[in-house]
């Protein structure tokens, strides 16, 4: 009697509810992002179509990021794009900059990020330390393609960072 409307309405309602839940989970807990560019080879490889699982729980209350984590952040020069790099130094640390032959201290509230593939990576070595407020999450696993599924390890370059 009512035609297809009740069916369509319930379908639309479910769609909206699903979207809301999905966006919330994406924002607060975890999301999956495709990797582009070669700056994180060989940890993350865009040629193989890697998809990375980004955990956002580390951003709650106290910043639970440590040196060596692979992190996702908003680019300091282009706010629309997200960048994935390795977190090398935290506020107060002293870091040796390879190109400049100098040792500098990370200012308060900032951190130092570098790609795993130093030849092609555009990172803190060019734009300096970035504010921690730009952080969007931590890469914990590779979830796609199937032959590359696995956790992403924490790794640090040897002898370049003096921890506070």
């Amino acid at each position, binding site marked *: 009697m009512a035609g297809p409307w009740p069916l369509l309405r319930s379908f639309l309602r479910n769609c909206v*509810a699903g979207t*809301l*839940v999905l*966006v*919330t989970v994406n*924002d*607060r807990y975890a999301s999956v992002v495709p990797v582009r560019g070669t700056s994180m080879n060989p940890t993350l490889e865009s040629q193989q179509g890697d998809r990375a699982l980004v955990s956002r729980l580390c951003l709650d*209350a*106290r*910043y639970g990021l440590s040196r060596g984590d692979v992190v996702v*952040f*908003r*680019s*300091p*020069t*282009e*706010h*629309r794009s997200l960048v994935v790099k390795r977190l090398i130094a935290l506020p107060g640390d002293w870091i040796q900059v390879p190109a400049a032959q100098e040792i500098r201290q990370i*200012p*308060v*509230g*900032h951190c130092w990020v570098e790609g795993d593939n130093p030849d092609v990576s555009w990172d803190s070595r060019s734009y300096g330390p*970035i*504010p*921690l*407020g*730009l*952080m969007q999450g931590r890469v914990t696993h590779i979830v796609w393609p199937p032959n590359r599924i696995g956790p992403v390890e924490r790794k640090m370059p040897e002898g370049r960072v003096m921890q506070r």
Partner: protein
Amino acid sequence: MSGFARRLGGIPWREIAGEAFSRVFLVAQAVCAFHVVNAHVCSFALVMGPSMLPAMNLAGDVVAVDLVSARLGRVASGDAVLLVSPEDPRKAVVKRVVGMEGDAVTFLVDPGNSDASKTVVVPKGHVWVQGDNIYASRDSRQFGPVPYGLITGKIFCRVISFPLYYGSFICH
């Protein structure tokens, strides 16, 4: 005993479980909807402190923050914005955007004590933020230009303003 078991069996467990599940899902939906609006459309913030006098008062204003235009890149010079402090990621501060990328900004280095001024060009993807009350504000004059990505939203209206006597009470 068998009567008790029969009575237990007679309770419509399936219906109760279905009802409970749908109620819980409804509450979860409401929470999610609140989060989505609060994080992507519009939110409220309590602003305190002397740095934005006289636009916002000392004792605290509740302001409405428009999150959409910041996301779309529509923030321009002259807007009051809510941004994540570059010195402490847990803190949000309110400042006014004075220069966008490529602008040359001239500011007094030490207002009140000297007339020395300095001019800087804001680098790509950054903004220059300053408090309205230049004598009591910690802003780009100290920590330099901030990345646009730190801007959370544009402040578009004041919702509640706490009375002034309350402010003077805090002050002394």
